[in-house]
C-alpha cells in the first residue's frame, strides 16, 4: 500500500468517524427508523467518498453531509410512499442548526446528562428511565412510583419541559 493510499484511507476513516453519529441522529430526527438511518448513513458516506471528498471545515462538512443524507432520504421516500411521514424538513433543518450544532448533538447529549444528574430528582429520573429505557406503560410507571395513572403524564411532561429548559440554557440558547 502506498503512502498516498494510506493517507487517503485515514482521511476517509476520520471523516466517517467524526460525522457518522451526527448524520444518523439527524436522519432519526427527520423521521427515519433506526434501520433506515443505518442504510442511509452508509449510502450518504459512500456517495460522498466515491465522488471525491474534499476536506472542508467541520461545520461545512457536517452541513454538506446532512444535505446529501436528506436528498437520499427524499429520493427513497419518492420510491416508497408507504413509509411513515417525515417531519417538516425546512423547520427541522433550522432547529437542528440552532440546537444540535456541528458536533452532531454531542454537546446537547452531554448537557442533557448533566441536567439529568443535577436537576432531576431520583423519582423523575426513575419515571423517565421507565418510559425511555423500559418502554413501560403509564400504568406500570404509576404502580412503580406509587402514584395515580393520570399523574404520570403530567409528571413526564413537566420533567421534559424542565430538562429542555435546562439543556438549552446550558447550551446558551
Amino acid at each position: 500500500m502506498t503512502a498516498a493510499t494510506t493517507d487517503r484511507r485515514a482521511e476517509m476513516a476520520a471523516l466517517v468517524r467524526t460525522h457518522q453519529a451526527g448524520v444518523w441522529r439527524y436522519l432519526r430526527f427527520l423521521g427515519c427508523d433506526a434501520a433506515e438511518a443505518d442504510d442511509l448513513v452508509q449510502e450518504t458516506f459512500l456517495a460522498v467518498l466515491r465522488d471525491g471528498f474534499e476536506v472542508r471545515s467541520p461545520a461545512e462538512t457536517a452541513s454538506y453531509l446532512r444535505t446529501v443524507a436528506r436528498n437520499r432520504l427524499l429520493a427513497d421516500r419518492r420510491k416508497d410512499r408507504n413509509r411513515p411521514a417525515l417531519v417538516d424538513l425546512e423547520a427541522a433543518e433550522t432547529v437542528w442548526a440552532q440546537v444540535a450544532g456541528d458536533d452532531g448533538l454531542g454537546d446537547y447529549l452531554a448537557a442533557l446528562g448533566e441536567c439529568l444528574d443535577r436537576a432531576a430528582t431520583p423519582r423523575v429520573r426513575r419515571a423517565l428511565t421507565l418510559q425511555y429505557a423500559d418502554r413501560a406503560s403509564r400504568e406500570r410507571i404509576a404502580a412503580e412510583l406509587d402514584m395515580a395513572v393520570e399523574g404520570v403524564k403530567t409528571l413526564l411532561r413537566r420533567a421534559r419541559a424542565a430538562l429542555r429548559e435546562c439543556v438549552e440554557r446550558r447550551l446558551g440558547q
Partner: protein
Amino acid sequence: MNPENDPRHDELRDRLLEQALAEVLAGAGPPDLTDKILAAAEQPESIPVQQKERVMKKRSRWLKIALPASAACLVLGVMVCLLLPATQSAREAARRASMRSKSERIHGLYDGYPSTGLSFEPRTAEPIRVDYDFDIDEDITRPFVVFGNEYGRGPGRGGDKYDMVVENPFRAVKDHPLSTFSIDVDTASYANVRRFLLGEGRLPPPDAVRIEEMINYFDYDYAGPTDATPLAAHLAVAGCPWRPEHRLVRVALKGKVFPQKERPASNLVFLLDVSGSMDMPDKLPLLKAGMKLLARQMRENDRVAIVVYAGAEGLVLPSTSGANREEILEKLGSLQAGGSTNGGAGIELAYRIAQENFITDGVNRVILCTDGDFNVGTTSTAELTRMVEDRARSGVFLSVLGFGRGNLNDAMMETLSNKGNGNYAYIDTINEARKVLVRQMGATLVTIAKDVKIQVEFNPARVAAYRLIGYENRMLAKEDFNDDKKDAGEIGAGHTVTALYEVVPVGATVETPSVDPLKYQPAAAPGETQESPSPAADASPATDELLTVKLRYKEPNADVSKRLEFPLVDRGASFGQANHDFQFAASVAAAGMLLRNSRYKGTATYDAVLEMATAAKGADPHGYRAEFLKMVHRAKDLAGRSEKSEE
C-alpha cells in the same frame, strides 16, 4: 413569523429532546458503521446491491433456456463452464449475504445498546479453541471458542488479556477457621461483561467475569459511619437461594460520604494513551468525552495536567487550575491518535508532574486511560508495578480507566491500579463515564481508607465449611492481616463493598478438597465428602455467633493500621426475609456463577436470577438494575443458543 415563536420549531425541539432522552437513558444511539462504509468504499464496482441481485436473476433465467441447447454447442458449453461456477459463486454470495442480514437482524434486537460495529456472525468460520500454557481443572473453567483472536492468547500475542480466575473452593472450618482477603472496589469486570452481552451479543469468556466486581458495581443502601471512623460495616445472613441447605452471609462496608463542597482539593494528571491502537470510535473519542465530563467538575482549587504517550511521551497541558476549564476542554478536544505506545515513559512523566504539584492533604492522583497496549519501551509488568507501588507510597495514587476491545490488557490494568492504591473501571459508554467520573467522582478520586483487609473467623460450633464468592485474586494469607507492610485495597468516599460467603452449617454434607491423612499427627484427616460434626458433638467455646468479621484499615496518610471487629449471629432468616439489597447482590452473584459456568452454581438458573433480581430491583433511580435484568435476559438467550448449537 418569528422563528422563536414558530410552533413547528417548538414541537421539533421537543422531538429532539425525546430522541436525546432515548439515547442517554436507553442507549438508543448511532451504531458504528465505519468498517462497513470503508469496506464498501474500497470495492471496485459500484453497482448497488439490489441491481446486483437483479442481474443474477436474469442470468439464472437465461441459463435455464440455454442449458439444453448447450449440450450440442461447444461454444455454449464453454460458456456454461464459465458461467456455472460464477452463478454458484453468486448464489453462495447471496446465501452469505442472507446469513449476514439475519445476523444483523439478531444484532438489531439489541437496539437498546450502542453498537460497536461488531456483529454476531454465524459460525461459518473455523472456531479457534483457546489454549492455555498450563493445566486447568476442567471443572473450574470451561473452554470457549472465539471467532478471531480478540480474547487474547497470552503474553506477546494480540487480543484481550485476562488473568485466569480459579474459583475459591469450600474450606472446612476445622482446618481453615480464618478467611482473609483484601477489599476490591473495581467495577471494570461488570462493564466489560455488559459490553460482551449487550454490545456484542455473545457470552463473555469466564476469566473476564470477576463476581466481586459485578456485585460491587451497584449502589446499595448501606448506612455510612456516624462517628470519626471512615467505614461502617453491615453484616447479614439468610438462606442461600441456589443451595437451600446452605446459608448466605453478607459482609458489607460503606465508606464515609463527602458532600461535593467538602471534597478536598485535587491534583490530577490525566495520562492518556493516544497511540495508534486508540484510533477507534470506542477508544479515543470516548476517552475525550469522558475526561471532558471530569474536567467540568473541577473547581478553582483543583489542578489538572494532561500527559499523552504514544511514540514519545509529551506534556500537552501543564498543571492548570480547574478555573481554566475552557483551556482544559480545548486541549482534550485537540488530541489525535497515532504512533506506538511507550506507556512506561508516559507514566514516569505523569508521576513527576503530579509530584511537582503535590497538594498536602489533597487528592493527588494519576488517571491512566488506555486500552492497555503497552508495547514499546522498558515496560515489563514487573517494572511498571514496582514503580507504581513506589509512587503510591509517596502519596500519588493511580486510577486506571480501560477502553475498547481487541488489545484490552485487563490483567495489567487491574494489577497496576491495585499496586497504585487506585481503582480500575472499564468505560464502554458515555453513560459509564458519567457514572464513574461524575456521579461517583468522590469514590473514584477521594481515598478515605487504604490497605483495607477483612478477616473472618468462623465458629466451628456453627459452621462446617464456607466459600468466599469472588475475590479470587484478592486472597491473603492469615498472617497478612496483621502485617501492615502487606498491601491491600483502597476504599473511596461513599464506596460500598460487598462480599458474600456461602456457609455450610454444621450437620450438612460438606464437599471440601481431599487431603491425605497426616502421618505424624493424631488429628483425623478430612475426607472428600464427609458428614460434618453435629452442633452437640463440638464443644467449641463460643456462643450463638456464626462468625466474627475483623477489619483492618489505614488512614490515607498513615502507616499503621486500625482494627475493628463485628460479630454475627444467625437468626435463621429465609432468603425471602432478607432485604432487597441482600437479595439483589445474591442474584448478581448467581448470574456471575452462571456466566462462569461455576461448579458451585447449585440450582441457580437464569430464570431464577431474573425472578430474584426483578423482585429486589427497588427504586433504581439510574436504571442500573434494570440494565442488569436486560443482561441476564441476553445471557439466557445466548446460553440457550449455545447449548442448541452444541447439540
